[in-house]
């Protein structure tokens, strides 16, 4: 039916891709780790350039992608989008970026995390069901595997693979991601796992009798020496709880603070704080008390709540 040449080419290609799958499935440092880093260095470099060229377009898209769900409007909005003055778009883009950096700096300084700023330059297609992005910082910038990635709103993910000038980050909403979480202001800990949907996480308390209510904030519990997750970072807010106290399948739905489909400026925590900042990093936490001497805050973290109770709520927040 096919010519001999066709059959040979097809057979070679099929065998090649199947053996790729099998070799890569073995895991570990297979033959693809070097191929991956070589290709990634090339593609990553080009992606940086492409991301800069496309930044007005992707920046403008943040405006209309807030209309997610009204897919009928997408085309109208695309047309509308094209009418936007490109100079205006790029300046707005710069302002947004500056605001995100400001927020990131706030999180980093309140929690005393040492961060390296980076920008998202590519996102994996959603057909892969993986929530992974590429950032434009790599081993040359001091990034290592399993470092925490945050943005101005809270926890974003962790570094999965590192190349020379780029790194792959797996977001917390990825179905394989799980983070140790703690309810702010209490000792209840549990596991926050990704669901594959951009605005929901599952939080399972380790203690089935523990108390969790909608509106509770969840922060990271922290891993040993701050990897893969540094302690005290805001993850999200509990929006729904299924099951009653004592039930085994007691799962809280958590909406992440960081908007996963629109992460752009992020920070990689290269050095976690020496002590757990507890709840002080939360977006509207009253814990950011105007203590006269910041150096005196080296008291154990558990005193934070008491301080809060004693201080009048800051109205400006």
């Amino acid at each position, binding site marked *: 039916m096919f010519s001999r040449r066709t059959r040979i080419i097809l057979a070679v290609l099929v065998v090649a891709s199947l053996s790729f799958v099998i070799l890569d499935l073995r895991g570990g440092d297979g033959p693809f780790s070097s191929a991956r880093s070589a290709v990634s260095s090339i*593609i990553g470099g080009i992606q940086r350039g492409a991301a800069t060229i496309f930044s007005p377009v992707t920046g403008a898209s943040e405006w209309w992608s807030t209309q997610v769900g009204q897919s009928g409007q997408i085309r109208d909005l695309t047309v509308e989008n094209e009418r936007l003055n490109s100079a205006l778009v790029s300046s707005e883009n710069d302002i947004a970026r500056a605001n995100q950096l400001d927020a990131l700096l706030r999180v980093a300084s309140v929690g005393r995390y040492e961060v390296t700023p980076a920008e998202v330059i590519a996102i994996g297609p959603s057909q892969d069901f993986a929530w992974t992005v590429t950032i434009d910082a790599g081993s040359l910038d001091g990034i290592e595997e399993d470092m925490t990635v945050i943005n101005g709103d809270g926890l974003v993910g962790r570094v999965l693979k590192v190349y020379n000038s780029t790194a792959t980050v797996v977001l917390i909403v990825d179905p394989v991601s799980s983070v140790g979480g703690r309810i702010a202001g209490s000792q209840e800990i549990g596991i926050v796992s990704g669901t594959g949907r951009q605005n929901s996480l599952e939080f399972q308390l380790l203690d089935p009798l523990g108390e969790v209510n909608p509106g509770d904030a969840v922060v990271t519990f922290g891993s040993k020496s701050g990897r893969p997750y540094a302690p005290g970072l805001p993850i999200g807010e509990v929006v729904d709880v299924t099951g009653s106290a004592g039930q085994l399948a007691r799962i809280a739905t958590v909406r992440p603070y960081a908007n996963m489909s629109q992460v752009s400026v992020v920070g990689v925590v290269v050095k976690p704080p020496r002590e757990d900042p507890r709840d002080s990093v939360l977006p509207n936490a009253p814990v950011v008390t105007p203590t006269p001497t910041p150096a005196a805050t080296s008291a154990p973290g558990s005193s934070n709540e008491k301080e809060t109770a004693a201080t009048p709520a800051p109205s400006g927040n």
Partner: protein
Amino acid sequence: MIFRQGLFIGTCVFVAVLIELTLLSRLGIPGATPDIVVVTVVAIAFAMGPVQGATSGFAAGVILDLSPSSDTLVGVNAIIYLIIGFVAGFWIDPRDRTLPIMIGITALSTSAAALGTAIVDSALGGDRVNWVEVPWITLSSALYGVLLSALVIPLIARLSRSFLAEKSLS
């Protein structure tokens, strides 16, 4: 001639992967990411034939699997796109190459790619696939495939005619 074809296929596929990863996936569009890579592979298969379609599908899959921001097994996308490229090139009837038919085949291909990735991923033990989302991803990728193919298929056809002009004589 093979060199020219290879260069053409490689360039088209590489540009498509770049556009998909840096532009389309960042638009925040609901559902699947508009799959310009599959559309390009199918367009090459239409313009040049099943073997070229299969080769470009293989190349596109390997580049996509190896690129940063992907955490899939190397070869999964390669084999899916390879099959799609071949079938699309084989299926198209040379006597009936109207745009609606080509767009229909493209829509089927993009949804087949989305569904195929889900099936192969879960068959290989990946625990990422969320089957509740699969129908929606499949449908939306067909929709975006239609939109993209109206642009990409004529473009690739023109490019291949002008770039590989001598080839059509042989």
